[in-house]
């Protein structure tokens, strides 16, 4: 959690220094959600999330250097500088992205759960034993594709936990102004024949405890669950949000329940000292500073990179571009890894 916090603070700084472009949505305040939920999974369990995704990537084990370089648009990024802040992908860690269209990643999550179950049961003839976590925000609860996906998950008995990170605001619109039954969104799960559970996402111990039970249950039953994860985003929706839609008093109230301080207090009763806390703080600062330096040193992709990874095949200036650099790029073969049918499975 402290790594994510420090990472996000440095992102804000880098964004203000214009070192990061392409928008930036920071996770400050919600750290316990990614950490508590992802800790309850195994590495083989797929994860898909929306655009506020740096926390999930780090919690899933992405090297902060690669995460930071991606935002800086550098070759060292997790997608070699082609995805950016909203598109954190990590194949080795089964992170199937950050996605930029609100709610549209939930059908993907349902498809991932369908795939693991199909592979475990139909191809391998065993029992479904992986659980997909599909994250969305409370604003996404009003997107049609989410409801299509929830219906499919319920209908097909898919092993997916749909986690609504309910920070109370879809950008600048509070949940009560934008969503029916906003005070109790778990009620929506019942309509899709799935269990709905409310979890405190500001207390990482509680989040983990609740999620561990749910993940274990879904692994056993292969039935979907919907989670209303109560949390609060301390900063604006994005970096340019004046936050006129909420009061400073409200923000201060939630800041009292900062998940890092909550955990610190819990640990102090077990002998955790302030020096230890400061030690961790020093470590994460050094790590994130190193990530920023590493990102800045990583090269910017060449223009010739534009035609790479559009298709598997070599792809070129279809429309007859006369830019010699682009033509040069097109002549280079595509370096995507060949697809091995079996190795390609999750």
């Amino acid at each position, binding site marked *: 959690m402290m790594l994510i916090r420090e990472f996000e603070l440095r992102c804000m700084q880098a964004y203000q220094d214009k070192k990061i472009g392409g928008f930036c949505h920071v996770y400050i305040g919600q750290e316990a959600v990614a950490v508590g939920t992802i800790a309850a999974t195994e590495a083989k369990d*797929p994860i*898909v999330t929306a655009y506020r995704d740096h926390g999930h990537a780090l919690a899933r084990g992405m090297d902060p250097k690669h995460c930071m370089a991606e935002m800086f648009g550098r070759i060292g990024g997790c*997608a*070699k500088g*082609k*995805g950016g802040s909203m*598109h954190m*992908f990590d*194949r080795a860690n089964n992170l*199937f*992205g950050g*996605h*930029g*269209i609100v709610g*549209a990643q*939930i*059908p*993907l*999550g*349902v*498809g*991932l*759960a*369908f*795939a*693991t179950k*199909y*592979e475990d*049961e*139909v*191809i391998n003839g065993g029992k479904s034993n992986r659980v997909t976590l599909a994250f969305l925000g409370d604003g996404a609860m009003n997107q*049609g*594709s989410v409801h*299509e*996906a929830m*219906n*499919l998950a319920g*209908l*097909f008995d898919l092993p997916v936990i749909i986690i609504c990170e309910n920070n109370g605001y879809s950008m600048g619109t509070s949940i009560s102004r934008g969503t029916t039954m906003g005070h109790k969104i778990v009620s929506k799960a019942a309509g899709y024949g799935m269990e709905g559970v409310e979890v405190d996402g500001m207390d990482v111990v509680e989040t983990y405890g609740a999620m561990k039970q749910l993940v274990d249950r879904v692994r056993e039953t292969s039935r979907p669950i919907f989670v209303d994860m109560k949390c609060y985003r301390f900063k604006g929706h994005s970096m340019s949000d004046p936050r006129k839609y909420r009061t400073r008093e409200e923000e201060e109230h939630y800041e009292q329940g900062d998940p890092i301080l909550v955990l610190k207090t819990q640990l102090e009763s077990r002998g955790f000292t302030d020096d230890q806390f400061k030690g961790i703080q020093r470590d994460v600062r050094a790590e994130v500073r190193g990530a920023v330096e590493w990102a800045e040193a990583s090269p910017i992709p060449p223009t010739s990179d534009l035609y*790479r*990874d*559009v*298709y*598997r095949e070599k792809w070129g200036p*279809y429309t*007859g571009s006369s830019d010699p650099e682009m033509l040069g790029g097109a002549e280079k073969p*595509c*370096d*995507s*890894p060949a*697809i091995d*049918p079996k190795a*390609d*499975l*999750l």
Partner: protein
Amino acid sequence: MANLNLVQAINLALIQEMEKDERVLILGEDVGVNGGVFRVTEGLHARFGARRVVDTPLAESGIIGTSIGLAMAGLRPIPEIQFDGFLGPAYDQICSHAARMRTRTRGAFTVPLTIRVPVGGGIHAPELHSDSPEAIYSHQPGIKVVMPSSPYDAKGLLISAIRDPDPVIFFEPKRVYRAFREEVPEDEYTIPIGKARVVCEGTELTVVSWGASVLQCMQSIEKSSRSIELIDLRTIFPMDLEAIETSVKKTGRCVVVHEAPRTGGMGAEVAAQIMERCFLYLEAPVQRVTGFDTIMPYYKLELNYMPDASRITGAIEDLFAF
């Protein structure tokens, strides 16, 4: 060899790929028990079971989104969208996710997905059930757009599409579904995506077309005394520009024929490519024979909307009179 129509050829390709590769599965509205509205998936549910031929709710965005998740996980889903017009609700998933995943992840994740869609008019259906949206999806880099006009091509192209590591929209012209039969090998074979077919050779004029319009072009050419070359693009995007260039440099005249509306249709792209590549070879301006810039009319007028042999012949004669 078997004498098959387009529906049967596609059905055979699906069976053979499913037999061969357990990662291949079909999903869509009524594709299972009912065998699809056009019966293209008939018999597959009984043969492969409900786990591999999956009846879904009527939810196109959900169907395509779920299929993208399946494909990213390494499976080979073949969703069917019941009619061309119903692609609209899935547009977001196709263009925001499927098309972009390879680029966005620098090749770490790919979407080997084949979306089958019956396309076009001529079967007395209303609009939304008779549309030709190939240009819309050809404008989205990252997607391949295929539209066969014959049973033989359909089987070979569908097998290529299923095995392709990138997303393919496979448009099946409804008007051709049961229009004629031809010899289709029972053995598997592939036809490369991105390669056009020269239907008949000629020296005086090139007709470029695709889908059901190819049949109208053939009717027109059969009646003509001129030496006309007909190119069936088969793949709309990426387009076989070499085939067009080679032919037009030889003939010096070109008519492009498609059912989709005129403005911004792929005929405009063909014409622009010819201008860029063959300008000094041209005897006359490129002509387009297309649907009109209107919504597809109700069935009583659909034949007035779609290019027919007489309109094509008119354009051909105009070019010789130029």
